[in-house]
């Protein structure tokens, strides 16, 4: 089944083109040191970047990571050649910064509970029928590996071979982790 291409949420095709044109001008100015132009880029893209970080990092150090991403973008703007859209470049940079933080905190991450038992325990807590765990909150509770693959594949649209390169796993492991994440999350949609 082909994945349908979608425009950024809430934007018509014309608005998307206008946003693209504004980005190109501001990127050019910011690359020459125009901080106000860079602030405009920040304001335009922070919701998406913050979302990527929030979902991948499971709610931990999100604001700090989002700031790290924009500081890194400022430093690396000179390397942006325009072969891809700025949005694509920025989102890939965001994913790389988050993964670098994960690698740096490897020992700490391995101590974080990564078992499905915690997820199952939370699910079995009695709740009033009218309440349910928000989907994004459910995402935060996934084991790290499963959550990362799910966000990269189902939310960000990466392919398994790309995820494998980013996370240092095989495409087969990526597929298995994705299925694991989906099977756990489906219980929160009932």
């Amino acid at each position: 089944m082909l994945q349908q291409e979608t425009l950024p949420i809430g934007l018509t095709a014309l608005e998307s083109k206008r946003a693209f044109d504004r980005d190109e001008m501001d990127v050019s100015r910011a690359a020459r040191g125009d901080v106000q132009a860079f602030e405009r880029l920040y304001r335009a893209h922070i919701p998406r970047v913050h979302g990527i970080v929030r979902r991948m990092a499971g709610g931990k150090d999100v604001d700090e990571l989002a700031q790290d991403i924009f500081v890194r973008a400022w430093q690396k703007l000179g390397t942006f050649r325009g072969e891809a859209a700025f949005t694509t470049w920025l989102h890939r940079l965001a994913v790389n910064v988050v993964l670098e933080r994960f690698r740096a905190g490897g020992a700490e991450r391995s101590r974080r509970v990564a078992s499905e038992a915690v997820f199952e325990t939370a699910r079995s807590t009695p709740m009033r029928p009218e309440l349910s765990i928000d989907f994004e909150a459910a995402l935060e509770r996934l084991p790290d590996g499963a959550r990362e693959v799910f966000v990269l594949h189902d939310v960000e649209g990466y392919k398994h071979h790309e995820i494998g390169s980013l996370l240092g796993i095989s495409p087969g492991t990526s597929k298995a982790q994705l299925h694991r994440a989906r099977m756990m999350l489906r219980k929160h949609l009932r």
Partner: protein
Amino acid sequence: MDQWTDRLSEYLDNELDAGERRELEAHLTACASCRTTLDELRDVTSRAKAMNDRQPDMDLWPGIEQRIAAAGGSRRYSFSLPQLAAAGIALMVLSGGAVWMLRQQAIQPAAPATQATVVDNPSVVPVNLADASYDEAVADLQRTLEVGRARLDPETIKVLEASLASIDQAIDQSQRALAADPANTYLYGHLAAARQRKLALLRRVSALADIEG
């Protein structure tokens, strides 16, 4: 759960080969549990695509701006006093719309397409900013600069190379944007301005190389 349960995500993502796909679809016609699970997995992927982005709870810009400033902020390039003096003269000339050239660099006036304003001065030769003439002017200045390069101090050369890289990037980005939007007059102005900057910079440094020779 059965042998096909773990393959449902691959089926959903169209990653099974034709034979496996047929087998699973045959299984689905007989297995209500797998059909239910498949529907639930579809719901999960739909929900993932529909996730909304939102602003963070606090404005993160002040912290970013502070860190950029602490790391050196603007990417302005620093020039020595003779370079700043020459830059000041060049900017005055450019702001009047005229292109000023050294008499020693006899560049032929080019075809009329995008001429800069001509100033009534024998040293002023209009340079067309259309591709062929502009490229010739730039190449000529670069050859002159190469001859005199050894007379320039390393810091000047470093500043020159960094400045040219920045301007070339602006030219490249303008050209790419124009390729996608050829009727955009703002972009034409942007491209012309970047090319003027490059010419002015090369003339300035060529002049320095001559002076210091």
